[in-house]
């Protein structure tokens, strides 16, 4: 089995984002591997460690500026064998490069560069754009089966048995035959910390470089972002001194009591 894992470089989840004239401020802001992509990498590496899966190699793919190479090195430190970097300086947080173009670039990689991919693993969504579209769009373009929001992935004959998390509960989906696309959700696994020896080894692993515009893909945004703004500041609450005051406020200010 050959696995392709999508990894995206995004603003670190712990950063308090600020909005400037051109959308979210990215200058000097800490960037990291998207948490859901991290889960996808972990899933790929665990499949590789599972002898029954017979994984020949795990390839990580990232699209973005040259610093994506750091993100790819992290993915390789976790266990990916090699990586592909498609270089573009277009903003990947929905401002410029959007899901449709990303899915098409993935498709080009699979059809032209890595022709024998059996399984594509991606995070369910990126935490900057929150779109959750690349996985399903890619499956659509490739005409491959898909299972999204995977909380459990088991080998099942020639295919996979995937448990999918929904708001109503867990759905079990049988993918009869590979190749397929699976997007990974929070409860699938807890990603490993890369150890220093593996980080050192990752520096020597191969990253193939391409330019985004050398593929025959339209990179222009399909949707236009009209405005980016911070949510309005929460109004400060007040403390009241006694129950009578509370009732008075609930009645006369909040209009919640009659």
């Amino acid at each position, binding site marked *: 089995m050959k696995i392709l894992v999508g990894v995206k470089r995004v603003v670190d989840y*712990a950063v308090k984002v600020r909005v400037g004239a051109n959308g979210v401020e990215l200058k*000097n802001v*800490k960037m*990291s*591997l998207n948490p859901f992509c991290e889960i996808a990498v972990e899933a790929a590496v665990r499949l590789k460690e599972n002898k029954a899966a017979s994984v020949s190699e795990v390839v990580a793919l990232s699209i973005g500026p040259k*610093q994506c190479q*750091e993100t790819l090195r*992290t993915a390789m*430190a976790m266990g990916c064998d090699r990586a592909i970097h498609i270089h573009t300086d277009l903003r990947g947080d929905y401002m410029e490069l959007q899901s449709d173009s990303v899915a098409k670039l993935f498709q080009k990689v699979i059809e032209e560069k890595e022709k024998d991919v059996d399984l594509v693993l991606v995070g369910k969504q990126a935490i900057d754009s929150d779109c959750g579209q690349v996985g399903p769009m890619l499956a659509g373009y490739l005409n491959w089966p898909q299972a999204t929001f995977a909380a459990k992935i088991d080998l099942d004959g020639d295919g996979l048995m995937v448990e999918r998390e929904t708001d109503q509960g867990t759905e079990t989906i049988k993918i009869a035959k590979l190749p397929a696309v699976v997007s990974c959700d929070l409860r699938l696994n*807890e990603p*490993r*910390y*890369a*150890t*220093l*020896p*593996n*980080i050192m080894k990752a520096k020597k692993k191969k990253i193939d470089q391409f330019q985004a515009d050398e593929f025959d893909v339209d990179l222009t945004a399909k949707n236009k972002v009209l405005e980016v703004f911070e949510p309005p500041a929460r109004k400060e609450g007040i*403390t009241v001194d006694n129950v009578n005051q509370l009732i008075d406020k609930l009645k006369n200010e909040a209009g919640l009591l009659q």
Partner: protein
Amino acid sequence: SFLDSLRSNADLAHVQINQNKYDLDSHGRGEGHHPCAPPSAILVPTSAHDVSQILSMCNKHKVPIIPFGAGTSVEGHVSALNKESISLDMKKFKKVDLPIDGILEDACIEVGAGVTRHELNDHLRHTGMKFMVDPGADASIGGMVACGASGTTAVKYGTMRENILGLECVLPDGTIAKCGTKALKSSAGYDLTSLMTGSEGTLGVITKVTVKLHPIPGHVIAAICEFDSLHEAAEAVATMRMCSIPVERCELLDESSMDAFRRYAASSGDGKFELGAENKPTLFLEFTGSSEAAVREQVTLTESICDDFGGSNFEFKADESERKTLWKARHNLYYASLALRKGATDAVLTDACVPLSKFADIITATVKDVKDFNLVGPCFGHAGDGNFHCILPIVEGDDDDYIAKIHKVNDNLIRRTIDVGGTCTGEHGIGYGKLKYLDSQYGEGGIKFMKELKKGIDPNNIMNPGKVVII
């Protein structure tokens, strides 16, 4: 009033002043049994400069001030014994100096005093390095320095003292002082970093700390082994040290702790370690190494040592999630112990540390006291360091007799400890509850030395007065 002077200082206009009753209460207590003693106000500075100005004003007006980190101390460190005290909440000091490309050049990093240890390790998660000191609580780094904290990894990596290279602090007169450097060792002048370690906010306010980091272990195996007696378990540990086994964690739990542990594991529903039918003193061990073979060697040798001392049911686990569950259960033993007495929200935690040769005797004597007095008091501890804790839960409504017996257990323990050359506190600190033991522990000379230092640095006694040393 003092707060009015603060408010009229334009330089400090951005510093939040909080007098909400509930917040004052939460800033007047830690996680021990000491009664809540709320401060009169909470200030939230954002920089060392803010702290410097605040301290100079407190010094001028002779207003006591108590630095506050995560509020997880257990010896009454933050209790405002003086009602006018100001609480200085360090929660805005959250800077972690990680390079933008995430690559650390040296095995150290500078952090704001308000960063907690879990927050720090989260920031470091892709660097391959980790901050190793792990007390039970998710304490702030500044607080951990002030308390001289340590945890289950001290047996291999040392305590806070051995894991910091330097710090920045503000003295009571407003002086901002740099202590230590980024070098791994130094002989330059007084060791101010060590002086501040364990000073419990009585000498100054820590604003930044340069902590040491260690590589995340490549290969880890956790193991447990049951013994018929605490003595045999302690002897096994001593032998392991003689064989130079570089054990990463070495914890000993008595029967009562094992009871608490099992109930916690059962209720939390995760992780399965096959334990024998009855609760027996048990060693919890962890081994790390650069290769699987290296770790297995340690495990094999340890198994045969445990066997020599009558150990049974030796079991080891390499799986990461199972190991994590095991140590999570160990770290939560405080709460599991409280749960042994329904309705308990507080406990007396003992914290004596003795030379290794005396460890077995001292923990056995305490277990016996707990039994003789008919109390609930699980005993467990860092067998590799000679330090253990007895958790004695208190339920509201406990009669004076029960409470008196609880304190007698602690008192007996500390007396025996000091008699064998140990310390009344291995990691939790003095606060104000253990002041009375310092005389017998250090004698006149040692106490005088501490008083002179305190008088020299804080002549107006504004820094957390009533703790550690009285002037």
